[in-house]
């Protein structure tokens, strides 16, 4: 009998414990880490987009400079490079991406896209608030996504050809991930779809973003306009590009006067300098470090003695070679500015005007820019009269101004379509005592860098043709 009583009391206690367990779910709901949250508020989403370590530095794969004619390295430097950089430098058919390379050149930019998609997804799930911040956050996410896809398309995709829709429809674009859903398979879109997505995102963002922001790490309406000018130029929509360039300059046309910049400094420009519309910089590629990379001597020769850029952008190494130091991101390392700045918009405007045949306006636009670059007053060379001459000159100025800005590779691809501007890139390395030349002819498939092999293997997505 007693035993029974004991058993009952034991069972009672157990029931009590069970009850406690259930009612104590609240006890277990306590957040384990005070800094952990599920991003549910506008504040949280804004904080995600303000992570400029993940976003503004990852928007652009550092590979943007690899297929340009702006720099070279000596054999001694070449020998000290990683195998990955070596094979990129000599335009190997199949540079082998190691896991670290995958991360930097593929995964990280897609992480920025994931952040943007997460923000858009959480916004959709939120009750629609008529709130300036809501629009702002949405616009920012769209801008970041478009910007990243644009930069990646420059590395991994063929160039957009306005006159050849068939090419745009059969060429491989980027895999367009538009939601944060992990179950979704990554499939490459067409080039046309990729550019359409970029334009759609930018145009939608345009109406959501404020004209000005406090820090150029955040996108603004001006940035969206400038970006639309850049993308349209690339797509050879010169009228549209001109329209957007003018709209951009209507709100932001401040240029730095290089006369007030210190030519002895390794960092003559500060980060977020007055010309910056949107701040982004490349992820490192050690080959580009000023210690290793030498500026192409023909290019250096193009700068006049009166051109302040000759001393502000460059320094002479003791062996007579030239190093670059005019980084708009304010660093002296291998992370280069690849955001949007006012000088580029002047050049877009000038080029579009020239292509339209409005040569005087084109010259005047360029003069405004170059006046801030020369020690004395700059005048457009009067000898150049024909549209071709003016355009060629403007394109050369474009190359000289926008060096190491992640733009040259897109220009090379775009201009290679035009017989007049075609160029074969050549690099020379001494191997086993013999100098060997490596070339990248115009419109070569190797302008599109391979999708990292692991990505192709895991997803089964199509590899770039060789």
């Amino acid at each position, binding site marked *: 009998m007693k*035993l029974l*009583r004991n058993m009952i*009391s*034991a069972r009672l*206690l*157990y029931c009590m414990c069970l009850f406690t*367990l259930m009612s*104590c*779910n609240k*006890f*277990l*709901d*306590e*957040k*384990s*880490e*005070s*800094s*952990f*949250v*599920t*991003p549910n508020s506008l504040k949280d989403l*804004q*904080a995600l987009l*303000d*992570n*400029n370590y*993940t976003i503004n530095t990852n928007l652009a794969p550092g590979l943007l400079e690899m297929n340009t004619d702006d720099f070279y390295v000596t054999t001694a430097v070449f*020998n000290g490079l990683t195998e990955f950089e070596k094979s990129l430098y000599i335009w190997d058919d199949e540079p*082998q991406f*190691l*896991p670290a390379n995958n*991360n930097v050149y*593929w*995964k*990280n930019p*897609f*992480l920025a896209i*994931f*952040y943007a998609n997460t923000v858009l997804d959480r916004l959709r799930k939120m009750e629609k608030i008529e709130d300036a911040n809501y629009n702002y956050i949405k616009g920012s996410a769209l801008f970041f996504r478009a910007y990243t896809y644009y930069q990646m398309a420059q590395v991994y995709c063929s160039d957009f050809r306005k006159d050849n829709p068939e090419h745009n429809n059969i060429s491989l674009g980027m895999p367009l*991930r538009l939601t*944060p859903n*992990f179950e979704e*398979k990554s499939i490459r879109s067409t080039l046309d779809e990729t550019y359409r997505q970029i334009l759609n995102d930018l145009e939608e963002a345009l109406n959501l973003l404020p004209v000005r922001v406090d*820090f150029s*790490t955040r996108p603004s309406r001006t940035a969206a306009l400038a970006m639309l000018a850049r993308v349209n130029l690339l797509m050879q929509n010169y009228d549209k590009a001109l329209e957007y360039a003018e709209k951009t300059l209507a709100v932001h046309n401040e240029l730095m006067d290089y006369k007030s910049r210190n030519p002895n400094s*390794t*960092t003559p420009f*500060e*980060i977020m300098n007055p010309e910056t519309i949107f701040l982004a910089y490349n992820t490192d590629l050690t080959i580009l470090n000023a*210690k290793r990379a030498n500026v192409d001597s023909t290019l250096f020769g193009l700068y006049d003695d009166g051109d302040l850029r000759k001393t502000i952008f460059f*320094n002479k*190494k003791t*062996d007579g*070679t030239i*190093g670059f130091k005019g980084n708009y991101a*304010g660093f002296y390392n291998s992370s280069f500015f690849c955001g949007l700045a006012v000088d580029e918009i002047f050049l877009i405007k000038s080029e579009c005007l020239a292509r339209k045949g409005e040569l005087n306006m084109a010259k005047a636009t360029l003069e405004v820019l170059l006046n801030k670059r020369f020690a004395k007053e700059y005048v457009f060379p009067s000898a150049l009269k024909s549209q071709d001459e003016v355009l060629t000159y403007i394109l050369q100025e474009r190359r000289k101004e926008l060096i190491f800005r992640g733009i040259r590779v897109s220009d090379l691809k775009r201009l290679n379509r035009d017989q007049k501007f075609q160029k074969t890139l050549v690099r020379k390395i001494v191997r086993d005592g013999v100098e060997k030349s490596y070339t990248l002819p115009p419109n070569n498939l190797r302008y599109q860098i391979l999708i990292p092999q692991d*990505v192709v293997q895991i*997803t089964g*997505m199509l590899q770039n043709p060789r």
Partner: protein
Amino acid sequence: MKILLLLVIISFTSHLYGQQMIKGKVYDETGDPVTKVTLRDSQKKMLGASDSQGNFNIVVTQLPLWIYCSKIGYLTDSIYLNNAIGIEIVLKQSNTQLQEAVVYSNGFQKLPKERATGSFENLGNDLLKRRISSTIIGQLDGLATGLQFDNRTKSAQLNIRGLNSFSGGNVKPLIVLDNFPFEGTLDQINPNDVEDVTLLKDAAATSIWGARAGNGVIVITTKKATNKFKIDFSSNWTFQPPDDLYYEPIVNSTDFIDLEMMLFDKGHFDNQFSNPLALRKIVLSPVVDLLQKLRLGEIQQDEADRKIRSWRSYDYRKDKEKFYRVAALQQDYIRINSGNTRSDHSVSIGWDRNLSQHIKSLSDRISIRQTNLFDVTDNLQLQANFSYTSTIDRAPAGTDNFFYYPYTRLFDDVGNSITVPYLLNQNYVSELGAKNGIDWTLNPMEDLNKSLTKNKMDHFAANMIARYSIFKGITGQLIYGAETQKSRNTSLYEESSFFSRNLINQFTQQTNDGKLKYILPKGAIQDRSFSTLMSHRIRAQLDFAKNWANSHELNILIGTELSHRKVDGNSYRNYGVDADVLTVQKVDYVNPYPTFDNLYGNNYIPFYGSNSQNVQRFLSLFANAAYTFNGKYTISGSMRKDGSNVFGAITNEKWNPLWSTGVAWALAEENFLKDISWISSLKIRATYGTSGNIGGGANRDPIMIYNAATAQYTNYQYGLINTPPNPYLKWEEVQTFNSALEFSMLKNRISGSVEWYSKRSVDLIAPDQIDPTTGFGNAYRNIGVINGRGWDAKLSIASNPNSSLKWNTTFGFSYSKSVVKDYNGAINTTMNYAESGPQILNPILDKELYPVFAYRFEGLDPQNGDPQGSYKGEVSKDYQKLLNDSLQNLHYYGSALPSHYGFLRGMLGWKKLQFTFSINYKFGHYFRKRTVGYAGMFNGTAGHGDFYQRWQNPGDEKWTNIPSMIYPANTSRDNFYKYAEPNVLKGDVIRLQDLRLSYSFAKIPIQVNASVNNVGILWKANKKGLDPDYFSTPPSRIYSFGINVNF
């Protein structure tokens, strides 16, 4: 034999309110009084207990009656009392020999050895105190079977019966102090306060700890108050000479200088001089600097020759010696114990002072512990324990991780400390000093005195236990434990320290009139960090024990536990500190400033500060039951269910209880063995069950983490998403089957056990490779499986207890092997496994953890001494291809952790003199030796001494495997050889761990002892003179002397 009972009339009777007081005394067979003997009536009602002199007073209401006297370790005695006259009782020890009843503690209950079905191992006080150490963990190495110490990094990593998880943080055993998992730092426990340690090895033993016990449990029980008046005092001195700086062979200065001169001639360093802006930040070795100056005509040939000649004879290790000293540790400890019939108390104080090998590092610890036991009423017992520990560590925070070349000098000829080239080019630095008055030099010895890191930690713990006998056989227990640990870490860098100067200089500006302007104020820099741990635990527990008709014994325990643990932390930095009056200066963190001479472009003043809070809560239900029939057959079972805020709601919902079950059969009690007199005991037992391992939590939504500091340029708050949402994650599970045979014979002179176990760890959390296009390279999933199995065996032999020469010896053998059976997580490069295999867990399918791989080596090329490998079955020198060859083509040796390990320990005693020793062995594992890498050597880091055995002339390949030196160096060639077969060696080793001699004086209660620890290696498989137990220099011998006084 039965009861010895003596009734002697020595006392008087008394009558109190109709009751009668009876006085008496309890003795053992040798005539010594026995304390804490409980006296009960036939209803098992407690009447009283004997005190420290063995005396008792009991009050009875009626006579005559039977009283029962019992105490653990003694046979229960019953006495028929028919008058109220004082009595004297003699109790007999329950086992013939000094065998004390072994009782296992699992942190919830005490379990007699006879009833245990699971795998427990008890390490008593005698064993623990053999080795003098300031930490309890330090005393456990090589003491128990199945407990492995991985000392390779010099900070011990423990595992019980192998590794059960893929992440380093998840392979540690749970450590329980008294009743609860220990939350503080183990260094806080004074080993002198420890009574014993119990290892819980299989599922039945550990399942009561549920989701935290997958790796086994170490239960530490502290000394409790006893009834006797007793004072223990001990004092120990320990000395340890500095570790051997010359352990690793290096290229000596003169050869290194020759090498630098050769490289200089070949133009190896020319690149560094090409860019004057970059050169400012390139530190040159003195020889290279000198040769460049000579080339530029800045110095004369004979001066250069003279300098180089003088450097040739230096060895930086000689100067480095002055940074070390003989480490000394002094430990003093006193414990006082007293009590009366109703309550017992003890208090202990320990003081440890430790001077480290590094000349400026020292630490202090004071520990105080108090325990109290109150018998409030016959049914209610209260226990209250308090402990307080305070530790202070001091160490210099100076910069001593500078660029070494073998002829580095830290002191000049007369012994004054001097500067070394560091961080910035030495010529640039001296120019700055002369021209601008900016001091950017580093003097390593002096810098030691200019900065100090002080770490102060206070730990306070209290627990209260109320034990109440509700009914006969049912005891309720309520336990409350509180613990708090505060740590304060302060680093103060004086203004003249390199750390402060470096930062101040960076932010120094030159104004137009040539003056210096300090953006970062001059003064000391102070970093402080604070953390507070607070934990509360409440446990309610019911114990039920019942015995029917002497043949059925049932024990049930059920309970619930609630725990809450919060850690708060914050840290900050002060600039411009005046160390005397502790004033600080304000700085501008928000705006960037141009750095001095534009060395680092524009920069922000480094901000240092954080705030964090972490809360861990558990809610658990547990039950455990055992039934024994006829004292021969036992079955047991247990289960536990845990919920935690760490796992998240989804995991809590679907979690099934962890459970275990076991059986035991005491064969020796059976009739067919009872008559065999030489068998003292024989038992077989087997268990099966599951326990868990905490992994990450599951989450349906992305979890965003706010970064503690705001973003650099914008000062905005910002967040990160580090892991993709993962709604399916749950904790890891370890399933264990254990079977054992235990025996003792010849009156316990020979005893031992053999255990066999097999484990399957499932749902192991591992990073699963996912499409990087998602933005993440991998997601954590429960995808891994490890199968483990092994043996633990122990054999003890003791001398005849009656002989004057006493000896005993114990052998312990452990074998454990764990193989990864399922893993499809991230795969690293082949080179990665070849390089880091032995150092990190590196799960690979069908391999053991810590896998050791090496590139297949085909000897040196007889023409030029190039190392040769094998690619696709052919001899190859394509190092790129060789390095990235498929992992299957590499030579897989096995694990870097020994599969066989164990110990042999012995004691030899003659009269009052006792000698003990212990020998440890480890077999079946591999390690990789370091070797020369020419690329690294050419870049100025001191080369490995294998340089001298390198191939130099055709024919050398017959006696050496070390490749020839080539210029330019080829990193792939270096790496191929570094991670090739010749550098993987067998780790097998037998080590004489410790020796100890002690003497107890006959007339006075004093014992003195002397011991040596880390005595040395008796035998090792490798012939290179390397100690396989350590990655780097092994620790040197430790000498200890001690004195104990007990009365």
